[in-house]
């Protein structure tokens, strides 16, 4: 220990010098003049090194380095990348580029003002395509990636959408005749004596049903207003009632497959894939999560949520920390990654939906991808997950009681209202 202490001051000087160099480099970068020295930047990735997404990004990095001479130092951090970023943001020794889903980035970087405004990148031409980054696709998701001032903080490359998944081989008629309204949907369930699978132990998965029903009934942004109501009484308003009553009927009507509220994830999703239930309301990762359980000939299809004018979506993309030393180089990489040929692998190799509508989605996600291009997008969970611990402390516990049929719609509205009022009193 003594050794490290004695080394401390020269090291501190070195850090200061490095910081000074970085600051000046940053200054020249934003002016657009490239320093003569060989450039490099650091990228902390949400992917693990041998995941398919990582191989796609790795190829793109190699191509980028070849055309620009910029070296990219990658750390394949995996999903916990932002947990590592938070302490680093405090100390100032930050990577130049990170990626994660929009809401996580919002929580970790935007709410504390540590993000760089991506407006300029969105307006930059994608090399060789004659269109800006926003125009080739990411612009569609603007609502999901802007901060309080309306400036984008993320450049999305993957889109996630929600739908009611089913096996197209088992229910072939649904592809042409999707139930348009909630009543049609329930009638269809009755008709087929179909069961809905739900891993109800995960509060946010259970909440999908009610949040979707409320969103369909009330329109964009309204559900978040309900949740943000300081008195909690908004939940008892007359216009909220119909959606809650629909869910009440779903809860008490025995539509959920047995075990939906008494198993541990992913048991129910596995049962669904194995054919023991018919429908699964889930995000677009459902096919890849269940592919090992699905029998031969299983066709992943998805219904839009009945009666919903928009589709709940989330995006995964790149963000640049405010104090990044090589922001310009990182942004150049982002722009180059938006090229069709670079992003294509995300669909063909990683089997995800990209943010470019001109890259066809993998077949098992075609229904979801069509929703994402045809309908307006609304934030996943109607944005409730950006309200701190509100979902896990307030909404989900009460809601799971409701959805599992223990309390009625009216009781749910009252109880939730009370808890919510207490929560906002605490968090004001």
């Amino acid at each position, binding site marked *: 220990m003594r050794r490290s202490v004695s080394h401390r001051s020269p090291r501190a000087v070195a850090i200061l010098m490095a910081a000074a160099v970085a600051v000046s480099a940053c200054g020249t970068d934003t002016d657009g003049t490239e320093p003569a020295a060989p450039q490099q930047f650091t990228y902390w990735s949400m992917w693990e090194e041998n995941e398919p997404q990582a191989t796609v990004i790795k190829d793109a990095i190699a191509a980028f380095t070849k055309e620009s001479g910029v070296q990219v130092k990658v750390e394949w951090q995996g*999903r916990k990348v932002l*947990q590592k970023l938070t302490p680093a943001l405090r100390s100032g020794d930050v990577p130049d580029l990170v990626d994660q889903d929009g809401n*996580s980035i919002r929580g970790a970087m935007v*709410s504390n003002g540590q993000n760089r405004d991506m407006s300029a990148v969105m307006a930059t031409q994608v090399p060789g395509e004659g269109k800006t980054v926003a125009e080739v696709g990411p612009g569609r998701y603007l609502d999901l990636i802007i901060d309080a001032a309306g400036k984008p903080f993320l450049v999305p490359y993957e889109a996630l959408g929600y739908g009611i998944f089913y096996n197209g081989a088992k229910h072939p008629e649904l592809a042409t005749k999707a139930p348009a309204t909630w009543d049609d949907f329930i009638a269809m369930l009755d008709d087929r004596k179909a069961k809905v699978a739900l891993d109800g132990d995960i509060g946010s998965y259970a909440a999908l049903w009610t949040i979707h029903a409320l969103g369909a009934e009330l329109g964009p942004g309204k559900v978040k207003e309900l949740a943000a109501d300081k008195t909690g009484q908004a939940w008892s308003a007359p216009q909220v009632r119909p959606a809650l009553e629909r869910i009440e009927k779903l809860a008490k009507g025995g539509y959920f497959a047995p075990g939906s509220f008494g198993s541990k994830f992913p048991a129910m999703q596995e049962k669904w894939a194995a054919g023991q239930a018919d429908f699964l309301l889930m995000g677009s990762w459902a096919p890849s999560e269940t592919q090992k359980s699905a029998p031969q000939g299983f066709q992943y299809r998805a219904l839009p949520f009945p009666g919903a004018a928009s589709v709940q979506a989330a995006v995964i993309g790149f963000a640049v920390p405010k104090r990044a030393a090589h922001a310009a180089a990182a942004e150049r990489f982002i722009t180059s990654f938006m090229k069709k040929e670079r992003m294509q692998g995300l669909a063909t190799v990683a089997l995800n939906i990209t943010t470019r509508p001109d890259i066809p989605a993998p077949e098992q996600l075609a229904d979801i991808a069509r929703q994402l291009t045809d309908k307006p997008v609304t934030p996943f969970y109607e944005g409730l*997950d950006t309200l701190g*611990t509100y979902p*896990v402390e307030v909404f989900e516990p009460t809601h799971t009681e409701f959805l599992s049929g223990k309390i009625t719609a009216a009781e749910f509205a009252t109880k939730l209202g009370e808890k919510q009022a207490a929560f906002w009193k605490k968090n004001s």
Partner: protein
Amino acid sequence: MAVLVREHARLHRPHGPSISRQRRRAFLVLTLPAVILYTIFFVGPTLASFWVSLHAWDGVTEMRWRGLGNYALLLEDEVFLAAFRNTLAILLAGGLLVFLLSFALLLGMRAMAGRRFARSVIFFPNIIAPIVLSVLWGFLFSTGGLVDAALSGMGLDPPNWLGDHLFLVIFLGLIWTHTGFYVTILMAATDRIPRYFYEAAELDGAGPLQQFRHITMPLTWDVVSTAAVIWTISSLKVFDFIYAFGGTSNDLPPIHTWNTAVFIYAQTFGGRVPAYSFGYASASAVVTLVSIVIFVLLLRRVIRRDPIQF
């Protein structure tokens, strides 16, 4: 080796100014490395977090002074209070069960053939990743799972374990995993007791229970009381096992199963979109810490006895 009480030993201890100075110097030399390391890398940051608990802080931007505001909120926060109750339940009820079970096993294993092996096996849940246990628990207790099947086989109507009694299920799992640890510690202590004590007792016609009461308990009392304190303190840090019931690697478990450690995690790094409320989390840690201190002091007072030398 005679059985001596420490009071008796102390009488024979030489006293003198030079020796006591020497003793003090030796004391310093022996403890200093540990004290320094511990103070810099542990106590320092802990004190810093006391300071943080008086602020609102997201971990990145400047702290905002809140005084005791965080504490006032905590005492009204139902989620925290429930977590605190769970922590106490694990500490008290769990502690009682763990120690009863440990002593029972100790007793049962004294004369057992292959006890080394048995002890290794009992300890083994400690080294298994909680995720495996939680997956197993899921299969065992899920609706229509093995436990349900057993119960309905006996003509009983199985409850919804994971839905309605999740905390109980977790509680049982905690006791199961922790018992091995205490059996290990206690067994290390009992094995130091010279065999001839037992042989002599056997000759006098004492049964295993009597041997346990008159030999094992008194001679291991020190270790037992240490183990009790270790349980107190480590029961507060139970985390992984509860957390593993959160489903995916991102989700938190239902709030009625939280203890204060999970609460702290939820307020800082946990969840799909973490809350990063370091001030509030620090305050809850301080409350927990202070309650342990009080409890440990009480506990030590209650179980203090003069150790018996042998």
